[in-house]
């Protein structure tokens, strides 16, 4: 399915105040991949994502989603294909109630009222926010807003899911829930995160951005084992790959299982 390929070629973006946020970014993401985009604050991650559904226009370079080059005329199609969760959920919620907000997309897709009801309930269950359906979005907590924002995008059944720091502000349980949701999503997933453990668990591939350039692009483990690269880009190994903080012994790379000795030394077994 060439349908869900994301291809970015020599993308450059200069903001109107002269900030060069992206210098020259190129990559190609094929169907079904799960890709993490990581980098320091201000590396250009959000800028990059905002290009993928046409919110920002490239200063130079081009973007293709599937067989369609991104341009003014193809924007409506591309926006239907690419579901985007913004960094700030306040930018995404604008209807009087959570239900209305999640139903907004499906109604625009021309779904019948009964189908919309069902779809909204489904996705709200999926993100664990069905109990909030009649509340106004502006009265929700930060993490609840985030979950509803994700539901609004899922309700459109996008072919490519793009998320800017999806787990930011979520409690541990909601984070796990969202990670399961991302893992179960069948199509292409692209997200940025400072939650490197999540990236380690969910992505086979990582793209490292540094000062607007693609500094590295490769298999997740390979990149997280390259200490020099990580230090250059103001990054660290995910916690689960670092030594156990209590006994100093290493863990299995990529496993979230803590070192068994740490339990012993913290006195849980008497």
């Amino acid at each position, binding site marked *: 399915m060439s349908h869900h390929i994301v291809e970015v070629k020599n993308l450059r973006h200069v903001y109107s105040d002269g900030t060069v946020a992206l210098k020259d970014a190129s990559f190609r993401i094929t169907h079904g991949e799960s890709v993490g985009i990581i980098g320091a604050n201000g590396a250009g991650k959000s800028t990059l994502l905002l290009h993928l559904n046409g919110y920002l226009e490239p200063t130079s370079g081009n973007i293709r989603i599937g067989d369609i080059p991104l341009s003014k005329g193809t924007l409506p199609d591309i926006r239907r294909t690419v579901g985007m969760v913004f960094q700030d959920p306040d930018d995404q919620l*604008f209807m009087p109630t959570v239900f209305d907000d999640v139903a907004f997309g499906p109604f625009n897709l021309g779904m019948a009222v009964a189908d919309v009801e069902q779809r909204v309930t489904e996705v709200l269950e999926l993100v664990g926010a069905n109990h909030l359906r009649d509340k106004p979005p502006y009265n929700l907590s930060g993490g609840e807003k985030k979950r509803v924002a994700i539901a609004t995008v899922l309700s459109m059944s996008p072919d490519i899911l793009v998320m800017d720091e999806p787990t930011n502000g979520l409690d541990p349980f909601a984070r796990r829930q969202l990670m399961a949701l991302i893992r179960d999503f069948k199509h292409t997933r692209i997200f940025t995160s400072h939650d490197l453990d999540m990236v380690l668990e969910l992505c086979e591939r990582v793209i490292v951005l540094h000062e607007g350039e693609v500094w590295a692009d490769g298999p997740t483990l390979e990149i997280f084992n390259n200490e020099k690269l990580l230090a250059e880009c103001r990054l660290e190994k995910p916690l689960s790959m670092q030594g156990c903080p209590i006994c100093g012994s290493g863990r299995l790379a990529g496993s979230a299982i803590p070192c068994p000795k740490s339990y012993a030394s913290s006195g849980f077994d008497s």
Partner: protein
Amino acid sequence: MDSINKAVLDLKRLDLLANNDSSIHRLDARAKVLVTCVFIICIVSYGRYELAALFPFFIFPAVIIALADLPPLFIARKIALLCPFVLVVGMFNPVFDREVLLHLGSFAVSGGWVSFASIVVRSILTVGAAFILVGVTGFTAVCQALERLGMPQVFAVQLLFLYRYIFVLTEEAGRASRARELRACGKKGLGIRSFSSLIGHLLLRTWQRAERIHMAMLARGFTGAFHAHRQSHFGKSELMFVLGWSTLFIFLRLQNASQLLGKLVTGLFP
């Protein structure tokens, strides 16, 4: 600033009321829009010294509030919010218009005071009717109805955006002024300079946020068409509603009901 913020959040509550269920809520939005229009036209078309004839019109808001189970105090407070503007508009009437129009006992009332009172009553009636319309219909549905009644789609969409924009602006204003107050360390005079820069920031931020929200709407397939999840059609009860109320309003407008009532009473008790 904080109180403005609260007042606007309260306005959103008005929108939420539209999700209730009552015989009035279930009516097709077009019927309610039409009746409200006739009501407002009748009120506005009165001469500037008309006062007594306006009072019978209070029956409309009273009946709708009762039937739709709207919180009357809440509506009253929303209307009171507009009082300062009305007072400014009508303030100079008593000053410039000193011609004595009627006598209350030994008290001479000038034309200025009468027209001032008339402006206040008319504002309460028209603004109240508009609030009640939103409370029993929802703003989106009102825009949709206007469009179906023949208003060009562009205007209907503009109206909807204007409404959303008010919320965006006040939310931003609330946040910015809170940040400014917190950093002023309790000083009273915060300085005109910080204030003017605050306003500048505010406009830019509002504009950016409004743009991002618009983007979020486009990303979810918004093409300018409205979708309400209350499916309704203009049936018999709608026709009755429109005809009944319109006849009453036009009758009241043509006959001075207060005078009629007065005559009746004086006729009965000579």
